[in-house]
């Protein structure tokens, strides 16, 4: 019965969706704003990856919000799980030597790779979030391979904080000294498609990378450790 009602309701909604989707032809979208980004993004922001220029310059404020959302989730998850008082020690199978050794071997490599991704965010499809996710996965791997080696909470918190503060600091620097706008790209734009280009974007992405990496690692750590 509930299914039938649900399906009926969804059909009504689908009907409405079809009506409006007919006005949004697939494959030829209305890209007035987007087209401007493509046309002028390189000059205005110096980033070869236009998505990055949108993410960190044109819509940088969204990204500030976005890292905040992640921060909220990380903090909130910690709060939810930390109230768990009755932690039991479980019998845990230790990882095999192969995994253990492999993880230790790969760990620095993955970190390097993460760093590569977030440093090249303005040149390649990477970016702070992707790089951060990779950094976090490195920690997850260590965690899986070497149980008991939890990430240092203090360290991750400090990195997390500093990442956020750097982002905001750069934004405020833009407001105070740069173009008089919050988050304005006040550093020299450099030559397109070189590492040192796009002004503040790489710096922001590095901050985001660190922040996201430590946050995701913390989230996963909490989820594994505190959820018995």
């Amino acid at each position, binding site marked *: 019965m509930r299914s039938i009602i649900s399906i009926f309701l969804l059909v009504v909604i689908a009907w409405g969706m079809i009506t409006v989707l007919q006005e949004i032809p697939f494959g030829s979208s209305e890209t007035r704003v987007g087209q401007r980004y493509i046309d002028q993004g390189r000059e205005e922001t110096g980033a070869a990856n236009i998505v990055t220029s949108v993410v960190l310059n044109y819509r940088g404020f969204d990204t500030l919000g976005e890292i905040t959302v992640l921060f909220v989730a990380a903090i909130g998850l910690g709060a939810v799980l930390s109230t768990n008082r009755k932690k039991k020690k479980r019998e845990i*199978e230790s*990882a*095999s030597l*192969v*995994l253990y050794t*492999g993880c230790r*071997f*790969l760990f620095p*490599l993955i970190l390097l790779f993460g760093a590569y991704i977030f440093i090249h965010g303005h040149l390649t499809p990477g970016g702070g979030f992707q790089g951060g996710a990779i950094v976090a996965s490195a920690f997850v791997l260590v965690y899986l391979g070497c149980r008991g080696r939890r990430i240092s909470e203090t360290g991750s918190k400090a990195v997390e904080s500093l990442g956020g503060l750097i982002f905001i600091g750069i934004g405020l620097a833009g407001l105070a000294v740069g173009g008089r706008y919050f988050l304005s790209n006040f550093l020299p734009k450099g030559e397109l498609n070189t590492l040192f280009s796009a002004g503040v974007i790489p710096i922001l992405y590095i901050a985001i990378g660190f922040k996201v990496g430590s946050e995701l690692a913390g989230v996963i750590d909490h989820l594994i450790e505190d959820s018995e």
Partner: protein
Amino acid sequence: MNGFGTIITGIGVLFLFLGNLGVLRLPDVYNRIQAGTKCTTLGAFLAILGIGILEPSWFWKACLIALFVMATNPISSHAIARASNKIGVPLCHKTVVDQTKDFKKDRKT
């Protein structure tokens, strides 16, 4: 060079396919994982390397990916196999010997 790359890639693709087929056909987890790991590792390695040869500017990066696959694939497969062994996923009826017990005895001491 182009032809060489194409052939290498082709061999890789072939092995990939065989590995996948093995996973489907072989009787139990352990046999499947044998086929899966060996063939896909080599298959992916060759396929990626072949592409690297076809696009010389990509070569080093392709090498890196290939090596990464080469390094990680046995580890992940090993982890899965070990888990299967630990939780006692049954062996197929063709199995002739299982010395896991002896190993466990060792493990205890």
